[in-house]
């Protein structure tokens, strides 16, 4: 199993009130539960990221409930207004109960 690694692209600084684009990606197989093991013919059990949340200083900016139809290495891009300096926290929830998180700080100026 490949290592699960979140990657996020956020500008380090922005002007107050500026709109920034946030790009997120996490390496994850997103096993849909529909595929069969070619050798045994058995279904490979479903294992996906089922939820993604991005928060800025604790306030939700973008939240996604995810079904198996989202591709391997789920990618999300969205915009945000930067009201003040602060921290963006990103959280991915795996079917197996694991939670992967990462943080990015945004400075004003």
């Amino acid at each position, binding site marked *: 199993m490949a290592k699960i690694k979140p990657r996020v692209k956020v500008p380090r600084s922005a002007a107050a009130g500026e*709109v920034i684009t946030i790009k997120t990606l996490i390496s994850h197989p997103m096993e*849909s539960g*529909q*595929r*069969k093991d070619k050798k045994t013919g058995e279904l490979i059990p479903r294992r996906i990221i089922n939820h993604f949340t991005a928060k*800025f200083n604790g*306030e*939700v*900016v*973008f*939240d*996604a*409930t*995810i*079904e*198996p*139809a*989202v*591709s*391997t290495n*789920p*990618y*999300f*891009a*969205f*915009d*945000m*207004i930067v*009201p003040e300096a602060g921290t963006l926290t990103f959280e991915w929830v795996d079917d197996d109960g694991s939670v992967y998180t990462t943080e990015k700080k945004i400075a004003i100026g």
Partner: protein
Amino acid sequence: MDVTRRTFGRLTAGAAAAALVPALPAFAGADPVQEAIMAFTGGATPAEGGIDLTTPEIAENGNTVPIEVSAAGASAILLLAAGNPNPGVATFTFGKLAPNRAASTRIRLAETQEVIAVAKLEDGEFVMVKNTVKVTIGGCGG
């Protein structure tokens, strides 16, 4: 006009065909998709327009089809792929700090099909849009 036996046959055949044509797409619209939309809207029928869905016309690889959806004033957007084994794709919710209520992602499509986006607007209205994507190599399964 006199209705003879011959013209009667023609008239009824035409009427039957006319009755069948609109009934067919509604039937082929498949229940799970309709159900998912109804569950999202709480039974309201979404209006057309007011939402943009950007999809490729032809997707060579159904495993990663880039899509982009935006709807001004939307608080949540539901994405569906009508031809997948499970129509659900994702539900996006936006906070106050999201200025344009737009997001892009990459999805799997099993075959050539319609991708549907339904947005819940902040005033409680629902809008939807449908795009057809031609898929050369399907995603899912294998």
